[in-house]
């Protein structure tokens, strides 16, 4: 065990920080937010050429043989910079789906194209009736010869308007909560019958509601095993949880730094407001939460990196998300409160960090969901929660 960054890892972190310093002033960022895609294709190409998109994937797949630690370092740096490019949706969620679910040459090729920056991916799992339970799947995929016919609705699909290919969870058999009968399938954006409602999210990203009406895809598009896709979904979600946690840590550490700077410079009653003990202690509580979030993120990243049993990995990642989300809430709200009125202003960066951090709290499951998942996975047998049932299947 060694907490120090290696030379290579330090280089990665510094190169992202430099990129952010050069390309992510508030004005530059506002221009990207207002652009058609909501992120910069030029930046994305740069990410590809610098190797950031493939850093954690095996070398024989066009990657660089890194580990979830490298993903953590990148995601944290993106979090610090409030970077808009779809790193988590395309690289972490989409990339993990392909890295663990590829069963045909076309899937391997797609991963390489994603790593090269030619193809953009995203992950479509949430539904009107699922809330955060990724095991609840009502989107139906009926077998029709060598094809699947997909019918259903997916919510909050990140950057779907720009993504070329969607990784979609569908039900190929069973009832909506059944752990078996879930499949993971690739669907191209322009497939007939697939329609979108695109919107700009409250934290200035892009997302879409997808409607599948008799969307026909070949069965060759199935990742992993038909009808037994839940372990793959869990793998994808866990990878996403790790990266989101790191992004939150980067974000929260900036909120802490900026808040402390503000406390030192803002004067009221003739003195810097940072001389008031009530405000000092609230700032200290922010620091404590940033440290706890960072520490649990290391723990979760370790669970992703090792060959932990799926149930242990899932439990570690739920612990990570529950703690990070709880810490994020305290840090975000305190940052706004300690800034006072200026924290409410659209012109001021702190509010933008706060909005992103608040949405990370909800993404891929909030505190309550992950506490429940953690408890359910910790029970020896007899679990009732869907995720624990899923875990039983994953082990069967």
């Amino acid at each position, binding site marked *: 065990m060694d907490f120090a960054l290696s030379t290579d890892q330090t280089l990665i972190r510094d190169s992202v920080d430099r990129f952010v310093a050069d390309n992510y002033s508030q004005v530059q960022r506002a221009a990207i937010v207002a652009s058609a895609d909501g992120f910069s294709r030029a930046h994305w190409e740069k990410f590809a050429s610098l190797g950031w998109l493939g850093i954690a994937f095996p070398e024989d797949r066009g990657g660089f043989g890194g580990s979830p630690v490298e993903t953590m370092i990148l995601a944290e740096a993106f979090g610090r910079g409030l970077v808009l490019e779809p790193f988590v949706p395309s690289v972490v969620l989409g990339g993990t789906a392909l890295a663990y679910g590829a069963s045909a040459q076309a899937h391997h090729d797609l991963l390489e194209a994603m790593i090269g920056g030619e193809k953009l991916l995203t992950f479509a799992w949430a539904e009107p009736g699922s809330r955060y339970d990724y095991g609840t799947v009502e989107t139906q995929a009926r077998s029709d010869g060598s094809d699947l016919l997909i019918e259903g609705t997916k919510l909050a699909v990140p950057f779907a308007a720009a993504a070329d290919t969607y990784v979609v969870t569908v039900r190929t058999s069973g009832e909506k909560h059944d752990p078996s009968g879930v499949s993971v399938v690739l669907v191209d954006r322009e497939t007939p019958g697939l329609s979108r409602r695109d919107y700009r999210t409250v934290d200035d990203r892009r997302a879409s509601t997808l409607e599948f009406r008799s969307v026909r895809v070949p069965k060759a598009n199935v990742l992993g095993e038909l009808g037994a896709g839940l372990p793959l979904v869990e793998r994808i979600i866990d990878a996403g949880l790790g990266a989101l946690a790191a992004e939150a840590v980067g974000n929260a550490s900036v909120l802490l730094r900026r808040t402390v700077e503000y406390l030192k410079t803002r004067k009221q009653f003739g003195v810097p407001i940072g001389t008031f003990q009530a405000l000092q202690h609230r700032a200290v509580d922010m*620091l404590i939460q940033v440290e706890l979030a960072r*520490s649990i993120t290391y723990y979760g990243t370790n669970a992703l990196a090792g060959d932990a049993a799926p149930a242990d990995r899932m439990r570690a990642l739920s612990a990570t998300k529950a703690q990070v989300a709880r810490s994020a809430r305290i840090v975000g709200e305190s940052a706004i409160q300690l800034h006072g009125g200026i924290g409410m202003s659209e012109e001021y960066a702190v509010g933008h960090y706060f909005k992103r951090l608040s949405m990370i709290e909800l993404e891929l499951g909030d505190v309550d969901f992950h506490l429940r998942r*953690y408890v359910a996975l910790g029970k020896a047998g007899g679990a009732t929660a869907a995720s624990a049932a899923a875990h039983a299947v994953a082990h069967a």
Partner: protein
Amino acid sequence: MDLSFSPRELAFREEVRDFIRAELPAEVAAKMQAGTELSKADYVAWQRKLNARGWLAPNWPVQYGGTAWSVVEKHIFDEEMALGGAPRQIPFGVSMVAPVIIEFGSEEQKQRYLPRILSSEDWWCQGYSEPEAGSDLASLKTRADRDGDHYVINGQKTWITLAQFANMIFVLARTDQAAKKQEGISFILVDMTTPGVSVRPIVTIDGGKEINEVIFENVRVPVENRVGNEGEGWTYAKFLLEHERNGTAGVAGSFQLLERLRAIARAQRSNGATVLDDERFAERVAAVEIELTALSYAQLRSLAAESAGKRPGPESSFIKITGTEIQQAIATLMMEASAHDALDPAEHSALWYFNMRKTSIYAGSNEIQRNIIAKRILGL
């Protein structure tokens, strides 16, 4: 960065487990399980086992009996000791006065006191707080007046944990009455059998008798019992406090307390289900366990930074705050899990809840720790 345990570290974990299984006396294990107080003999018996193995003072330099373990190995050791139900380390000798003696003491003091700590011949206690000097420790009034080769100590120290077991006390006393507050304080080692030293128990709200007052009336102590320079005791005191904070976080012990909490919650039933089956309760336990997991990694990070050449700094304040809040949260859950049984003193959970109030007060209250972080980390 490599966040996993190496094969060597995993093997070491097994070694510690085997040691505890083989050496922990059954009656001590039973008391630990039940949460009953240990006697001095219980503690000493365990310390002797550890010493025989060379594991009593892992943090000391090897030449004095330390283990030269890495921070990760120390962490594993602490964790296994707690999970294995071994008695907690009594810190006053091994972890408090010894590092001060090693860092600032004379060669004679090292030769005399360190072996006696290892052999459990000496039991140390800490003479810091006074009735008028709590959080504002530097306002202490106990005086040590020079009289030839001796200091004559007069004053009153309070909140002294397990002084009833101790034969030695380290005392902060004012050797220069004219100097400014933090100056003029010296760090003095006192044999408690010296005439004029008396110990009076203070009964706490849980009925416990673990803390005491120690009164000094014209106690004559040889000048060579002063550690380091006269008037520089405050520097040594702060050095000790930073060492103390990491220990008071009780991270490893809290993992063990969680097991006890689960045992209580499993034994309590309503409508055929246990309290641990109650989802809301289970989630509250989970939230504490998760925070403790985060803290345990935070402590590892802090220790790793320390081993990279830094002494424990203000980060230890954050560990102390969170660790003690977690200890209290577990105590609260234990009491709540016990329901009606909590009223019965034979069932310890409410008493434990009362007792645990101390953790956010001692070793520098959590508010003082926040002041330290605000000033020294955040620069406010």
